[in-house]
């Protein structure tokens, strides 16, 4: 079986999460992707845990390996003119170029969109800078886990009486790749129709904002600021995360209407659950704190799996608050092969998140572990660029080309 993007060629300068995750939508569907890497400035993820056996090393990070399956790696020093020369030849080969450095970095290297257009007029160039390429603050530096605040997530998350709770990890890095990939795929469709390339200038910051549009509208319509509300919901009650039997075991329960409450009360079978005050959603909302307390007392005596099963059987939304171990064991995720396991030379056997969708006619055709740094340097130079072996050897010796295996 072949991938949908078989034959599409991507020269990928991007690093960390947003770029590599975006490019994975393409590489998993058969696009030929060459990651341009530099051993002197390796991707931050290559230096991020988890590592095989806990030992850091340029090729041992499972975090890096998980972002980059189905790609090749070219090790090349872009600080050297010969390195730039090689990369420019690859621009002529490529349909798509992707990058996620700070704005200006590619231009300084002579690899900006305008430069590339001269080599390949129909190039589709996707840049994924933090705040986009333009605007007065475009030079702001950082990572996704700091950017979440600027996109608005930090301020509204957590408890009203506390410092905000940060969404886990570089939260916006989970959002931006969808917008980047959607724009890129549309660009490819456009290019196939018209023969025209384009420069797509994605902002990671603005991608994050797309997931909070309602609070921006609300602010303008009502003038009110949204505070932090813990786990409460504007109208549902009970709506929360409740402690269960066991250490750090939790269940999420959301009763969205009176019918569900009635069924819930039936499952609980304790006197308080039939309290008249709780029979209407308004009543339950009014007595939210008390209800949360009573529900907690009931959940504490049970496991989250048991509660989920009891409630779901009656159509009540409830679910185990799954930790990473739960996710690995989850029967539904397993059935759909939502988490892949690959064997990587440096990182060992490691997990990879698949996509959130299954394409009925084009399931991911092959799953090849991520490259070690420069693993494909020889192949790219010889097979794609047609360079003679001696030249490759010379450039490797001079450190212009690199392989760290």
């Amino acid at each position: 079986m072949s991938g949908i993007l078989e034959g599409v060629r991507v020269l990928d300068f991007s690093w960390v999460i947003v770029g590599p995750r975006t490019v994975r939508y393409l590489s998993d569907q058969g696009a030929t992707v060459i990651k341009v890497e530099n051993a002197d400035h390796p991707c931050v993820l290559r230096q991020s845990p988890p590592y095989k056996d806990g030992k850091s090393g340029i090729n041992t990070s499972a975090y890096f390996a998980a972002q980059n399956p189905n790609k090749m790696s070219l090790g090349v020093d872009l600080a050297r003119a010969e390195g730039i020369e090689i990369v420019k030849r690859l621009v002529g080969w490529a349909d798509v170029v992707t990058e996620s450095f700070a704005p200006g970095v590619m231009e300084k290297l002579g690899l900006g969109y305008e430069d590339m257009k001269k080599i390949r007029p129909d190039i589709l160039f996707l840049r994924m800078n933090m705040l986009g390429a333009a605007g007065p603050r475009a030079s702001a530096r950082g990572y996704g886990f700091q950017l979440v605040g600027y996109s608005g997530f930090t301020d509204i998350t957590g408890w009203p009486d506390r410092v905000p709770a940060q969404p886990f990890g570089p939260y916006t890095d989970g959002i931006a790749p969808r917008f980047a990939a959607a724009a890129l795929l549309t660009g490819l469709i456009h290019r196939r129709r018209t023969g025209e390339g384009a420069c797509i200038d994605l902002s990671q910051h603005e991608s994050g904002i797309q997931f909070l549009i309602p609070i921006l509208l609300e602010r303008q319509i009502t003038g009110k600021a949204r505070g932090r509300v813990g786990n409460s919901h504007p109208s549902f009650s009970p709506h929360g995360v409740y402690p269960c039997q066991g250490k750090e075991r939790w269940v999420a329960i959301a009763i969205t209407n009176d019918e569900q409450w009635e069924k819930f009360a039936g499952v609980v079978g304790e006197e308080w659950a039939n309290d008249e005050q709780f029979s209407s959603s308004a009543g339950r909302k009014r007595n939210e704190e008390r209800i949360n307390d009573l529900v907690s007392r009931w959940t504490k005596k049970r496991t989250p799996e048991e509660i989920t099963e009891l409630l779901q059987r009656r159509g009540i939304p409830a679910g185990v608050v799954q930790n990473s171990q739960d996710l690995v064991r989850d029967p539904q995720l397993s059935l759909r092969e939502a988490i892949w396991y690959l064997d990587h030379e440096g990182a060992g056997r490691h997990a990879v998140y698949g996509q959130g969708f299954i394409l009925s006619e084009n399931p991911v055709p092959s799953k090849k572990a991520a490259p070690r740094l420069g693993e494909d340097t020889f192949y790219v130079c010889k097979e794609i660029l047609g360079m003679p072996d001696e030249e490759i050897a010379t450039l490797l010796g001079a450190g212009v080309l690199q392989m760290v295996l």
Partner: protein
Amino acid sequence: MGGFPLSRVGKTPSVVNPAERWPGGLFDPGKIDSGSHEVGIEGDESMKKIWDGLSSVRVLDLSTESGFMCGKMMADLGADVIKVEPPEGAQTYASAHLYGDGPSQDKGLHWIAYNTGKRCITLNLDSEEGRRLFLGLAGKVQVVVESFPPGKMREWRLDYEDLCKINPALIYTSITPFGRTGPLKDYQVTDLVAMAMGGPLFLTGDADRPPVQIGYPQAYLHAGAEACVGTLLALYKAEATGEGQLVDVSIQESLLTSNFNAVYTWVTEQILLTRMGSSRMVGRQLEMPLTWPCKDGFVDFAVLGGASGGKTMKNLAQWMEEEGMEDDTVGSTDWGSFDFYGLTTEMVDRVIKPITRFFSKHTKEELFEGSIKRGIMLFPAADAGQILTDPHLKEKGFWQEMEYPEKNEKIAFPRPPFRINDQYPGLRTKAPVRGEHNGAVYGELLCLSAKTLENFKQNGVL
């Protein structure tokens, strides 16, 4: 240097005539009458100038709130997205995150936010006649998006296997909590429950309190955005081959990437990551703040090593020194080459205190401005008001003002988060009112007259 000789390895894309790509006359760009499509001039015009985008793609969007984002993104990219709603409206949209009083779909913030650029028709799929009309429409579009519970569309005989018979090139995108098959397929979720089952919830919140949700529901947005990417992949193929397919999106699965290194850490090192409130983990299981209090709120900042972390710390130390707040631990440590595995609790303490003191002397805005100038990685924890007045977004032209009738004034909507050839695609229109485009859409696609439509309306079909 010369460019790479294209004749050797370069691939010149074949230019395809769109009319040839959709077999069976399904696609006829000439029939898309943009005149009857009430378009906000700005959005549509700028899209045309930029690129063709998805302008020849038409989408029937039957999704409930868990799928709005998919169609919105496609509309932002130029597709003609037709929202299909039951005549009586869907109660769920009106249950939460409203503005004003009283339940009303048109006041649901989620509806207003994530249906921009779409047209909207009503259709009663519970009626035989309604389903017949739907089959007619499904023959004239490239994409159907739905997020009904698994089995619902089959009950109506409108499932993928029904529709692909009349439209083999159709992309059918299904968004369900756990996917269309499997042991949990019939589990009920809300956003909170999906975030629980997908993993991000466990990882968010203060350590001494229960895991906590993100302040605006997120799971459905992840799923909708993921669905859009899957749909476009399928569309890329269908345009060339005429072969459609089913895109089976799981909300739970769409949340996996938001677990970042957590599952990887479990599988590789058997360490279970957990929530740390406003902190992050550094070195050997030590906590360091990520959210720091300042004079008027909070900023997001991390003590980091490596090239960029080292630069940040050096520049911060210098800034502190300039203001007479120099600190030995912050200033004289070489953070660039610092081994965080050697970090001790005592040292964490010695670093946090002076930085906190410095931050609390400044506002978010001062800290952010100063950080940009000095190459420090720091961002403000902005609230909605600050995002709306942010000078960067304003100057970039990120906002598009649109009339909001009940408000009697224009309000600002964010444009899509990308610019194509230095220009933002605009939002075509504000979110439609239910059934707003019945006349136009049914007229255009099925040649139904106003009289016929009125009849259908009387009989509860529309």
